[in-house]
């Protein structure tokens, strides 16, 4: 069972690395959205510093949303998803592997690039440190919740708009706790509470969403 988990993880990562051009897209999008903000709001450092946590986190949400479709779409198209569904392995475990693979491909680059972008927005060192932690804890939640949304819409021809309508309201708690933590850190306040809440959300999401996604997939494929 654990071997099946590893095989799916390895397969998804290999597939992603073979499509190197696509690999860069989410993180490029993330950088672009953040760069657009100073151009729109104005280059005043005091304002930028204040909105930095929100801007970076909203950009992270959007780039996650943009790449979500990949979790199941290609597998649906080439039929491997059906093979997974009829295999003897528990589907929720395979989905967990796919969620983790998706996060490593799209979330991890954002986690690594985010702190550098925060530097451009003038966030203090404490704020950047906390931003890194919240991104590390928060972005897997995005992939996990997103997997349910994709599982529900993967059978549709134009699932994209509906996907954002389904998923974005569910992302709100992550956005709130994460940007709160970063804001508090930048202002010199303790950040334990929001980060603890984020970690709780992560555990909850990782334990419940594969289950919901697998029943949604069975519906979509049937």
């Amino acid at each position, binding site marked *: 069972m654990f071997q099946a988990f590893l095989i799916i993880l390895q397969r998804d990562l290999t597939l992603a690395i073979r499509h190197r051009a696509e690999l860069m897209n989410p993180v490029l999008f993330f950088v672009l959205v953040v760069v657009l903000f100073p151009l729109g709001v104005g280059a005043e450092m005091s304002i930028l510093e204040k909105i930095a946590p929100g801007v970076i986190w909203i950009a992270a949400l959007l780039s996650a949303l943009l790449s979500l479709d990949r979790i199941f779409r290609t597998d649906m198209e080439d039929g491997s998803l059906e093979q997974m569904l009829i295999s003897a392995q528990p589907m929720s475990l395979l989905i967990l592997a796919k969620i983790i693979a998706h996060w490593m491909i799209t979330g991890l680059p954002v986690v690594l690039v985010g702190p550098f972008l925060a530097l451009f927005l003038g966030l203090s060192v404490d704020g950047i440190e906390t931003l890194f932690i919240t991104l590390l804890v928060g972005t897997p939640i995005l992939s996990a919740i997103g997997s349910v949304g994709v599982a529900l819409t993967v059978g549709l021809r134009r699932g994209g708009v509906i996907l954002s309508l389904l998923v974005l309201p569910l992302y*709100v708690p992550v956005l709130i706790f994460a940007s709160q933590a970063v804001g508090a850190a930048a202002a010199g306040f303790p950040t334990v509470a929001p980060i603890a809440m984020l970690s709780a959300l992560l555990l909850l999401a990782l334990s419940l969403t594969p289950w919901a996604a697998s029943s949604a997939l069975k519906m979509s494929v049937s």
Partner: protein
Amino acid sequence: MIMKFIYKLGSPPYFYHLSSKLLPWFSGICIILFATGLFGGLVLAPADYQQGDSFRIIYIHVPAAWMSLFVYMVMAFSGAMALIWRIKIAEIMLINSAHIGAVFTFLALVTGSIWGKPMWGTWWVWDARLTSELLLLFLYLGVIALYGAIEDQRKAARAVAILALVGVVNIPIIHYSVEWWSTLHQGPTVTKFDKPSIDIRMFVPLILMAFAFKFFYGVVVLLRARNDLLWRERRSQWVANLFAEKDVKEDVK
């Protein structure tokens, strides 16, 4: 016993006949409650010492806000029934509740906004309860959009049921995260378990209105569900029999 009832309820003809017996009762109770509640609220209740007469909008606003959550719970519950027992009636209740719930949520938002203008001096504030109500509206709209996008109705109902259940897990999380984020809304007036901080003459009409809204929802959801049911079962024998009976009766007249 309960299971037997649920199985019975799952049969479309039984549901149809039961609902046609319930509907007149529901409508009657609904009208009486609305009449007494509105009279009590708009005429008998004294004006608020601070807000004057404009507080009276709570007789629409608060019941609508309660209903927005209540209907979501009904929706999630029928979603669970639809997923576990594949009951067609539950699927129908689920999607029709979504439409009505969205309207209640919208009503709560609009009346709140109308009340907020004279009281807070602004149509909208990014307050916790307003924001979570707005997010609830988006959850409803997501359900409706997803249902509309999937062509096969049974499949769509299952998808929506899963979504409703995911939403139910998330509603408390969203609510509290938004609550801690910021709040300006006045604290709850009625849900305190000790003596409510509201005059009894204001309080009774509010409760009447709350029940009036519940029965109103009952009437509307049954009407819609019956329509939906007839349409889905239009090729089945019992519907044909039903209309054959009706034709006979009309011929006799």
